[in-house]
């Protein structure tokens, strides 16, 4: 069977790729996609640990499902916000959305 560390390696890589996407893309939707990748990495991590350490109990999968739920909610709200912003400002470029600036 595949050693656990391989999975961890993949998840770490996936997480970092998603992170890079989330931090370096200019388009809000692309940022969202990066975040989704990170969440997926986390999910894969959970399931891998579940399989390799606690396969007798289903807690790992339970939490994976919760992560999926949260991801779904996050995507829905995030995209709604993006659409609303687009209506307002005709742009979804993250760099131009800097109202946080004092």
């Amino acid at each position: 069977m595949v050693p656990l560390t391989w999975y961890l390696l993949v998840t770490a890589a996936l997480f970092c790729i998603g992170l890079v996407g989330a931090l370096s893309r200019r388009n809000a939707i692309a940022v969202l996609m990066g975040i989704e990748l990170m969440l997926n990495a986390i999910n894969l991590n959970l399931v891998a640990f579940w399989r390799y350490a606690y396969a007798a109990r289903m807690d790992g999968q339970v939490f994976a499902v919760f992560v999926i739920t949260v991801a779904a909610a996050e995507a829905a709200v995030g995209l709604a916000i993006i659409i609303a912003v687009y209506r307002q400002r005709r742009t979804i470029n993250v760099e131009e959305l800097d109202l946080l600036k004092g």
Partner: protein
Amino acid sequence: MSESLVNLLWVPPVLPFLAFVAIVLWAYRSKKLSVGLAIGAITISWLIGWLLAFASFRAEGLAEDPLRIFRDWLPTGSTWHAFGFALDPLTGLMLFMVPFVCLLIFIYSVGYMGIGKPQGAHDERGMPAEAGHVDPLVSRFFAYISLFACGMVGFVMADNLILALVFWEIMGLCSYLLIGFWFARSYPDPNKITPKEAGLKAFLTTRIGDTIMLAGFIFLFIQIGSLSYSEIFSPASLEKLATTTANLPLLGPTPWATIIAILIFFGAIGKSAQFPLHVWLPDAMEGPTPVSALIHAATMVSAGVYLIIRTYPLMTAVEHGPALMFISIIGAFTALFAATIALAQNDIKKVLAYSTISQLGFMFAALGIGAYIAATFHLLMHSFFKALLFLGSGSVIHGMEHGHHETAHADGVSAHGDITQDFDPQDMRNMGGLFRRMPKTAWTFLLGGLSLAGFPIITAGFWSKDEILADAWVNEHRIVFFVLVIAALLTAFYTARQIVMTFFGKPRTPAAAHANEHGSIFWWMTIPLMVLAFFAVVGGWVGIPTTFPVLGQFSSNPFHHIVGSMAEVYGFESEELPFSLMPLMASLLVSLGGLFLGWLAYRNYGTDKNYALSPTARPDPLQRLLRGLYPVLQNSYYFDELYDRLFVQPTKRLSYWLYRFDDQLVIDPIVDDVGKVGLYLSEASRWFDTHVVDAAVNGVGTVTELFGNAVRTLQTGRVQNYLLIALVTLSVLLGAFLLLPK
């Protein structure tokens, strides 16, 4: 014990709460619906409560391992804190009393609040409704008392101190809300306390006790690591508490058990209005009478006693420790002290309030001398007859208001105008001769009063009080015994005084002459009275000691067995006392004697020569007897004033002085001097300014600007930049964590 009952355990507390929520959120618009919800909920939890209660009486060995339903709730470090409800004989007894009394008082409130009456034209929210009209906020009232019922039932059923504390505070909140229920009410004379202030007073005063009690809980948790009854009262932990000591400043090493016991007892002092925290209870009478009956006579104030009974193993952990002595001293003293005050009160409810305090004192004294069973017995009996008395007084007040209403309308004056202001329907001096006017009320009130006075053999109060006295006598607690005997004498006396002044003699005011208890609403009010009267008399018969001459052989004394099973578990004295004549004689003497003296003194009160005086101005027979002392008693030893001087005023003055100090002694001078100095300086150094300072200022300005520009680039307002900073920090820290040697 059928295990299926376990699944019912959560029902009695939860249902009233649901009713509360339903009323507050949805049902409040319809008064009828709200009342229906409240009463329906309490009825069901009453039925289930009795089911559980009787089951617990019949069950064997329930005292050792109570029926528990619980769920892990609070992670406390390593362990989980389980929250849940438990059922043992003691809880069973309380479950027998609490929901039942609640139900009766709910029903009574329907009449008292005038459900079904028309909405008064000029009734404003937060004011008592004009006679014959429904209270505008009646839905809110029922919501509150439902919440209170939840609190009380939950408190008696809780299986750990945290949950108990939660319900305890719920009760405190409800007490506050209900005392201040008529929040808009105000009186012409400024010294008379308004409901709003009274509620605040009650809340804050009890809060003192609660805080100290919480400290006790915290110490307990530190020592034991759990607050669940089953674990606190386990022999091991009791042993630990009794042996480990803390080094107190003056007292030297003291066992934790004593400290914690006394700290917890302070909570009881606050809740049960014992000396020195008794001041809130008389003022709490500002609340509607059902509230006084429910919260300030039957249930909440006795919750303090129940707390001590519940934590009794803790109290007795140290043999003959100072904790018990402390309890007994406070109790006995309060019993006597409050009874003396009650002698001189003219407000019908105030008398009952002080008698409540003194009766609670009885219970604490009993607990202090180790009369566990007697205290429990008196607790239950007292709840019944004191609730009865309060409801009766409420009915009287209602009747008086009606009478006043009629007379006022007869005079053609709006009863809601100034007349209600100066006429006090609660003042016993305005009453008299109500026996013929309101017979149902009078009879029931009479029974309750006799029970309170401990009228021999038939009434419940006799048996419970007698058992306490007997306990005190047999266990050689002479001082307590005599103090309590005197208190009992006074009790009988002022009871007689109250009954005579209220019901006998001739009506002293037109209102009293026209008072009546007819009309639909009075049925709502009188039926609970009758039921309670039944229990106030018959209730005591379950506790007739088998050693009692003649009657003893008819009695199996079930009560003693029920509570005894609890006592055996924790190894308190639980065998029946040998019969001894002295206490019996004493209680016979004091009750009958007191009643007789009272009747003697007041039989023709107000009907003698100075008939011309207005009823409130006529002298009280006691005034002649104890001249200077009378006003002292009447003003309850000036405790309110004392506390006002000692605590309230100093606080105000302190804060005022702080303000003064800050404002006048510090700021003004500084400002002035700075001003002067500044003036001179500026005069002296204009040239300096122009040549040096400006340059410096500008320099500072430019430097600041430079820094500002440098720094403000950090705040771009772009999420991604911030996240990048986070990422940088994280990876740097991670690197440090990995590279640096551990």
